[in-house]
């Protein structure tokens, strides 16, 4: 059971994030954090992996966090959260503390790659937390190096564009499928452009007593090379071109929460970002086609999964 997201005016005025942090102007990650925490109860505890978000919001003696917050290392946010969860469980049993919702923020680096093991272990053990992966599709904090979440064809400093290679060769890891394979009660993708869908998913996730997961796109004006005013628009285009479909998996049942019947051409999304500019050169036409086909195949896969899982599993009661 969760409280419906009515309107923006009904959201809390107890700002989760204080301004004055050092995130870039137009940073997608901070919009993700604000929207997630505005939808969550005010007594939430936040664990954060090392990365853009952490470094920029907690620089002694300044902290942008108006919620209890903990960071220690890059690869262990999910493990730290496991400890917080277990401790509050133990303390609550004694009546010494109350259990609070726990939200973990990890970038694609701290989630897809170095933090993968900790996330997998925490999900398998069934801890109660919501893990939000804010995905800016590269190790942005250390200077735009590729991650397992970098899409095929993207330029990064470790997938450079030259005569022998043009951007990342490998496809983006299908993180959602891996999370779903852990049979967590709830996992979903979300976009800051579709704030109501995002906030509903946050509340839905937090209503479960177990590990839940949100994969949110966090467009990066610096790493993706686009004007800072276009961050939200970039996220919206990703949804509208089917590059980043909005769906949820609840009790094993797939559901596309924002169906895109007539997608905009993928090029419309790619051409606004400097990291894809090489794809519009004639010698990279094949790569562009592979990318486009990948987008279509993925969306069709999700449609089929929605039909199949609706027949196989009983969706949980609302």
């Amino acid at each position: 059971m969760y409280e419906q997201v009515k309107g923006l005016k009904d959201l809390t005025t107890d700002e989760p994030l204080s301004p004055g942090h050092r995130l870039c102007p137009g940073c997608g990650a901070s919009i993700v954090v604000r929207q997630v925490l505005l939808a969550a109860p005010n007594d939430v505890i936040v664990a954060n992996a090392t990365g853009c978000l952490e470094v920029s919001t907690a620089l002694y003696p300044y902290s942008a966090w108006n919620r209890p917050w903990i960071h220690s290392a890059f690869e262990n946010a999910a493990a730290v959260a496991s400890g917080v969860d277990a401790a509050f469980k133990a303390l609550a049993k004694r009546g010494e503390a109350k259990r609070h919702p726990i939200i973990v923020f990890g970038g694609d680096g701290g989630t897809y790659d170095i933090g993968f093991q900790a996330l997998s272990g925490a999900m398998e053990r069934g801890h109660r937390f919501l893990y939000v992966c804010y995905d800016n599709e590269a190790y942005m904090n250390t200077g735009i190096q590729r991650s397992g979440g970098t899409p095929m064809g993207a330029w990064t400093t470790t997938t450079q564009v030259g005569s022998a290679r043009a951007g990342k060769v490998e496809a983006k890891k299908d993180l959602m499928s891996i999370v779903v394979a852990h049979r967590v009660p709830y996992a979903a993708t979300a976009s800051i452009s579709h704030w109501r869908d995002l906030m509903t998913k946050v509340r839905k996730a937090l209503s479960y007593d177990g590990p839940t997961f949100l994969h949110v796109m966090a467009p990066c004006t610096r790493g993706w090379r686009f004007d800072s005013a276009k961050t939200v628009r970039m996220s919206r285009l990703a949804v509208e071109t089917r590059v980043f479909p909005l769906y949820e998996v609840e009790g094993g049942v797939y559901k596309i929460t924002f169906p895109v019947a007539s997608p905009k051409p993928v090029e419309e999304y790619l051409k606004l970002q400097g990291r894809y500019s090489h794809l519009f050169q004639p010698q990279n036409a094949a790569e562009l086609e592979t990318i486009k086909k990948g987008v279509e195949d993925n969306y069709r896969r999700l449609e089929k999964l929605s039909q199949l899982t609706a027949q196989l599993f009983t969706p949980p009661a609302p």
Partner: protein
Amino acid sequence: MSWKELNQAAVVKGGTSKDYIVSGWRVNKPVIDEKKCTNCLICWVYCPEPAILRHEGGKVTIDYDHCKGCGICETECPPKAITMVREP
């Protein structure tokens, strides 16, 4: 500051970043045309800082100490009530 004066283990009280002024980061600043503003709060939910303050009845004002001038509010405002103006 001596080691005796620093907070133990670098633990910080939450929210202190608001004491850090980032107005110097921006080139352009947003200006709200109150006549056009419909108090929808869309700019507020999209502001990365947040440098948009909420008031009674959905009225919003810009926190110019903390606005970095990214321009998202201008791009997203449905009635186009916000304009990014070059700062002198």
